Each structure stands twice: as C-alpha cells, then as structure tokens.
C-alpha cells in the first residue's frame, strides 16, 4: 500500500477510508447508495425534460417550440411528473429496502422479508393521516432528503430481524412452497414488531415537522438577523452554505438547497430593487448574499460543485466505472441536478470526497468574495430560472456580464484541480477494496463480513 500513495496525507486518508470500509455500517450505506443510482439517474433525466421543455417560464422558452395544445401538454406533463415522483421522488423507499436487505443478509436472516418490512415501515411513518386522500405520504422525506433516515431505518429493521428471529432456512433444502411458508412464520415476529413500532412512531411524530425543524430554525436565523456589516454578511453566508453542503453530503438538505423553491431573503430583494432602479448590478448594497456567492459559484453542477468532479474524472481517471458514471451523469449535472453523480460514484457518505465536496465550493466562494470586494465583477442580483446551468448562473444573474462568466470558468477550473487528487486516491483505493464489485450479488456474505 505504501508504494501506491505518494505523500503522508494520501496514506492517512487511505488508511481511514479502508478502516471505515471494514465497518458493516459504512459498507451498507455505500452499497445502498450505489443501489439507488439507476433510479436517481432516470429521475434526473425526466427532470431535465420537465425543466427544459415542459416548464412555461423556462429560459429555453424562446428556442424550443411550444406545444400549443394544452390538453396534450398537460398529459405529457402528468406522465413526466409520475415518472419523476416514482424514481427520484421516492429513492428513500428503495434505499430503505436495500439497507434492510443487506443488514439482514449479513446476519443470515431472511433478507427479502426484512427489505419488504422496511418499505412498509417507512411508508407507515411517512403516511399522511388525511380524510380527503385515502393514500398519501409526506413526499419530501421520500426523496433524496430522506435518504439518511431511510438507510438508518433499514439497518434498524435488519437488526430487529437479527434480534428476534432465527436464521433463514436453506433455500435449496426443501420444496419451494413449504419453504416460503416456513420463512413467513420465522419472520412473523420481527415483521409485527417493526410494523407496530412504526405505527406508534408515525402517530407520535409528524415526520415532516420533525425533519423540517432544524431547517426552520436555521432559516429563521438567516432571515431575521440581518446585518449591514459586510464581514458579518460574508461569514453568515459562508456558514449557511457550509450547513447546506454538509447536509446534502449526508442525504439531507440545507436551506440553500437548489432543489427547494427559491427562498429569497431581504438582502437579495434589496439588491434586485437597487439594480432595477439604477439599471445596473454594479454597486448593489449587499455584496455577500446567498445569490452572489453560493448560488453563483458554489453550485457548479449541483451542491458541492460536482460538475468539477465529473471533469476531473474525464481528465485523470482510468477507471472504467468512474468513466461510465461520469459520462451518464454529465448532462443532469449541467442542469444542476447533482444527485445522480452523488449516488453513482458514490459521493454521498463517502469519506474520501467529503474534503473536496466542502473545499471546492468554499474556495470558490472566498475567491468570489474577494473579486466582488475588488469590484472585478458585478454581483449576481437578477432572478435565475430554476434548472439554469450552474456554470451560467452568475452570467444570467448579472444580466450577461462577461466578467462573471469568466470568473465562473475560473471557479470551475479551481474546483477541478481540487477534485483531481481525490479522484486519484479513490481510484487507487478501488484496486485494494472495491465496494461496487459485489453489489446485489447472491453470495456476498464474505464481502459483508
């Protein structure tokens, strides 16, 4: 291993990662994240179609011919919404199945039953008690932002199977029909326990309220305590950006999340009013807002500047898996839909990538802050349409300023250079311990131990 890694830092990081990869907890998370990749990718492509063609206020409205027939348009839109909601929109359900299945398999319990129980459990917890709609769920927690909760729940279900049932019978030893019945009765106890606990849990805690609580607190902090001091503004914007980036790294979402509806704070509105009044973005009163720093320079290709990771892979990686994933996730990432690359590499929960994932956006934001302070480019103050390419958002937000565009390109280059060493480390580690190899295999007991 020593000859693979050049310096002390690389060796240290590799050691930590290899140690973590030995942990069951970590392996299950990583494997689950890899498992949801196809659904995330499919959902991302559907989302692109919705953003570019089906939205009536999209920035591509002028060049893409519009469907004048509202009936046809609405039907296509409905189909796209259905496809999106049941792929990327409910990845947490798929993830909880995977996590429970892998955990139960590790303990030689009935993995299939554990996975299915986990799905029921998650759906019970997120169930909406409504008299109007017979079957509805808290949708937001079923998507990417509910991933962490779903994986933990799955592992808990798998562990319940270990604690309360005996091991699964050998599949080949008996006749099929009797085997299925036997399996049912072996797993009946953990299934009932999990489902009853879930019902109690869902009744006591309204999960959306619970999951939104930290966000609401941070958001009210961000909007209610505005300061006119530029330094404090800069620090608070960076602080909230860090919160957002770290939250999305762990399958949650922060207040600046690009998926959410644009929340504009008073400083952003002040800037817009100034710019409309003076017919220029130069000299806007608040230089360091979420729009001028975070949305323009820290989300190149989605949270954590993952477009830079894709380019870094194109430049230095020789790993065929990385290349394939990068190729497929390139287009979604152009439209700032970073979830597919985050689950495909995987970046989510991956200890190697946490450093560039935070460092790249942070460096770009600091560079942008300096450039804004020195008046090298105008601040981004005008509205940016959802799904606008991350690389172009500064360009759009400054009403087409070339300085801002050039600065975005510089930011991207810097981010690519930050990602390159970590891509190399990840690649070398794959040759030692490949997590993706045994994904979904039949006899992966050895790898899980």
């Amino acid at each position: 291993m020593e000859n693979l890694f050049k310096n002390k830092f690389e060796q240290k990081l590799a050691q930590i990662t290899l140690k973590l990869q030995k942990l069951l907890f970590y392996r299950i998370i990583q494997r689950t994240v890899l498992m949801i990749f196809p659904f995330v990718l499919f959902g991302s492509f559907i989302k692109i179609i919705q953003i570019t063609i089906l939205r009536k206020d999209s920035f591509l409205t002028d060049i893409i011919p519009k469907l004048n027939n509202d009936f046809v348009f609405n039907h296509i839109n409905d189909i796209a919404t259905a496809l999106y909601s049941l792929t990327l929109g409910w990845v947490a359900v798929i993830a909880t199945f995977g996590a429970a299945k892998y955990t139960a398999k590790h303990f030689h319990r009935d993995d299939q039953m554990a996975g299915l129980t986990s799905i029921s459990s998650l759906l019970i917890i997120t169930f909406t008690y409504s008299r109007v709609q017979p079957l509805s769920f808290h949708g937001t927690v079923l998507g990417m932002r509910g991933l962490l909760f779903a994986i933990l729940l799955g592992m808990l279900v798998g562990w319940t199977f270990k604690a309360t049932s005996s091991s699964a019978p050998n599949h080949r030893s008996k006749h099929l029909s009797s085997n299925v019945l036997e399996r049912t009765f072996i797993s009946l106890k953990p299934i009932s326990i999990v489902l009853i606990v879930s019902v109690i849990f869902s009744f006591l805690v309204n999960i959306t309220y619970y999951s939104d609580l930290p966000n609401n607190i941070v958001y009210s902090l961000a909007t209610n305590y505005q300061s006119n001091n530029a330094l404090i503004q800069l620090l608070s914007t960076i602080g909230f950006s860090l919160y957002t980036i770290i939250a999305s790294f762990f399958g949650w979402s922060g207040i600046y999340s690009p998926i959410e509806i644009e929340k504009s704070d008073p400083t952003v509105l002040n800037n817009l009013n100034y710019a409309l009044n003076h017919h220029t973005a130069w000299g806007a009163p608040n230089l360091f807002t979420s729009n001028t720093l975070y949305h323009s320079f820290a989300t190149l290709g989605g949270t954590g500047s993952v477009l830079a990771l894709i380019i870094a892979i194109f430049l230095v990686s020789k790993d065929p898996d990385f290349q394939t994933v990068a190729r497929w996730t390139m287009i979604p990432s152009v439209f700032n839909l970073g979830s597919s690359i985050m689950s495909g590499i995987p970046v989510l929960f991956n200890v190697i990538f946490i450093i560039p994932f935070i460092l790249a956006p942070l460096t770009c934001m600091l560079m942008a802050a300096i450039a804004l302070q020195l008046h090298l480019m105008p601040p981004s103050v005008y509205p940016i349409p959802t799904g606008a390419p991350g690389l172009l958002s500064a360009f759009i937000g400054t009403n087409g300023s070339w300085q801002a565009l050039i600065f975005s390109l510089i930011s991207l280059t810097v981010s690519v250079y930050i990602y390159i060493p970590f891509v190399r480390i990840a690649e070398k580690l794959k040759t030692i311990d490949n997590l993706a190899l045994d994904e979904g295999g039949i006899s992966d007991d050895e790898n899980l131990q």
Partner: protein
Amino acid sequence: MMRTFNKQKKPAKYLIILTTILVILGIPSYIWTKKNVSTLAGRYNSPMSPIIMIPGSSASADRFDDLVKTINKQYGEHHSLLKLTVNTDGKITYKAL
C-alpha cells in the same frame, strides 16, 4: 507518459461535448436574462401602477365613482378607469371611462 496520453483521448471527446452543450445553453440564457431584466425594470420603474378596487357584495361597479372623481380633481389628472361587472351567468360586462 505515452500511455496516459492515449487513455485521455476518449475522455477529451466528452469535454468537447460538455463545452458545446454549455455554449448552446449559454445563448438562450443570455437572451432570456436580457429580456427578463428589461421586463422587470420596465415594471419596477413604471411611473404608474394599476389600482384594483373591489366593491362590497351589495354595491355596484359605480361604487367608487366619487373617490375617483375626488382623486382626479385633487391631482388635476385624468386617470383612465375600467369597470368590470361579473354577472351571475359568468358573463363579464365592462365600461371604460
């Protein structure tokens, strides 16, 4: 050195594709932002803004005649006025002054 060069040939293709996509998207976004900002600026800097007045359920469309007259007299200007009445059968009748 030779080997890395050969391996990089293919990924370079995707970098070119990526650049092309961004250039293609850049042009409409430039047009979009120019148009959007000029619409917003036009709306924001407009010296006049429409005022919508809705009479109570038992009043007619002429409910605000006195108010409009007073305002017009006070500022010495004649503001245009459009009165809309929505009838029970869903039809809209209007009067412009």
